[in-house]
């Protein structure tokens, strides 16, 4: 039995995000924007920081009780944190999920270019990015600015 299992009880249904690079769990939570969920929901979140890992040395884990990460979110997580594993739990059973990569990311990232129309607060322009995985960047559909995939966590909205 591993260390984290001793710390946290099992999930009947929900999502476990494992193999998050150490101390990056907050970025994962920001991307999921859980604060926007219905306040009356029975979701619980357990975050483990910097726990030992055979694969990564140290890692973070996020357990979401009674919340399934959406397919869109899963794809973005897989893009930004390629070493992360996403497990859906249904009726105590673990299903390892391997999402594809997103073609577009809509409304999740702030454009790093300050003069982009999407940074004009009162204009109803939602930031949209095209993913160019082979070049390691996403491209703002409005202003063409390139953002390295590794820097996406620095520009998450929310």
């Amino acid at each position, binding site marked *: 039995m591993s260390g984290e299992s001793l710390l946290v009880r099992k999930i009947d249904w929900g999502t476990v995000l494992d193999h998050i690079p150490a101390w990056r769990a907050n970025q994962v939570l920001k991307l999921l924007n859980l604060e926007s969920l219905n306040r009356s929901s029975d979701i619980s979140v357990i975050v483990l920081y910097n726990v030992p890992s055979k694969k990564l040395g140290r890692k973070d884990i996020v357990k979401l009780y009674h919340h399934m990460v959406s397919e869109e979110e899963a794809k973005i997580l897989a893009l930004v944190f390629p070493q992360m594993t996403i497990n859906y739990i249904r009726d105590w059973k673990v299903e390892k999920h391997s999402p594809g990569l997103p073609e577009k990311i809509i409304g999740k990232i702030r454009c790093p270019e300050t*003069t*982009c*129309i999407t940074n004009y607060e009162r204009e109803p322009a939602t930031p949209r990015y095209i993913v160019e995985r082979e070049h390691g960047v996403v491209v703002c559909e409005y202003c063409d600015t390139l953002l390295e995939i590794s820097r996406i966590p620095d520009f998450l909205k929310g």
Partner: protein
Amino acid sequence: MLSRGGDSGNKNILGSFPQQFENTLAGRDIISCRDFNREDVELVFGVAEEIESGVAGVEDALRGKKVALIFAEPSTRTFQSFYVAAKSLGADVISIHDPSISSMAKGETLYDTVKMIEGYGVDCIVLRHPARGSAKFVAESTSIPVINAGSGSQEHPTQALLDTFTIKKKLGRVDNFSMGMLGDLRFSRTIPSLCYLLSKHDGVRIFFMAPELLQVRREVELHLSQRGVVFRKVVKSEEIREIMPELDVLYVTRIQKERFPDLTEYEKVKGSYIVDMKLLSYGKKELGVMHPLPRVDELSPEVDSLPNAWYFEQARNGLPIRKALLYLILGGVA
């Protein structure tokens, strides 16, 4: 009677073109030079030449049409040439040229401004705005064609069309030549558009001559690489002389003081490169010098009297190109 390509039996600018030149621009937005294909460009040039030659009687081509010019940034050439182009084709023009005396000064959004203008039955919007992405945003917000007349430091596609039209007229070709781009390549909106348009042509070599701080943006480099365009960055000013003999055209841009987030950075680079008789003496005798204007001190007036100075003719070419664009986009009328 003037009409779109495909119609027959009438006096028709497009009727004098081969069959493959149908009006592919009718009703289209002009947002980025990446959206053009080579045939679109040839079509614009062909119509511009017909208009320039006076063969085509286009005085009433857009009678009954309304063109809105929304300029939220200063402009001389682009605004005036679009204004004259629209009027001379018979269109009515609505203009917001000084945002300080429009509701934009009260905080009205670009979105609301455009929706209001559209409600007045306008057929086309010509937009200049300081925000990158503004033209695309407006195009998505309206059902009428939008022409990007400058979207911050992002693009200026109609300038690139007139630039390339000038090269075609002066050099006799738009393929297989070498071009130096010198000055502020980072904040200039004409540079990305010109690069995107030249990438549609064959055998164009580009030398980006600027200090690192003002070098061309990464998205432009990526685009050129993907299109297989040969380009080289020249960062050291002493290397420019060595490059000069290779160039057929030298395109000079002003350092865009107004776009520097930090004015101390501007102070570091202003006056970095100056094109004068001495620099031109290192180039080919027939080297063409272009500039989108306005200039400040990067292009010496002593060059003006040389046959190498293409820039005033370049500015004049804005009129036939913008007439051709309006004609094609709005389709011409009986």
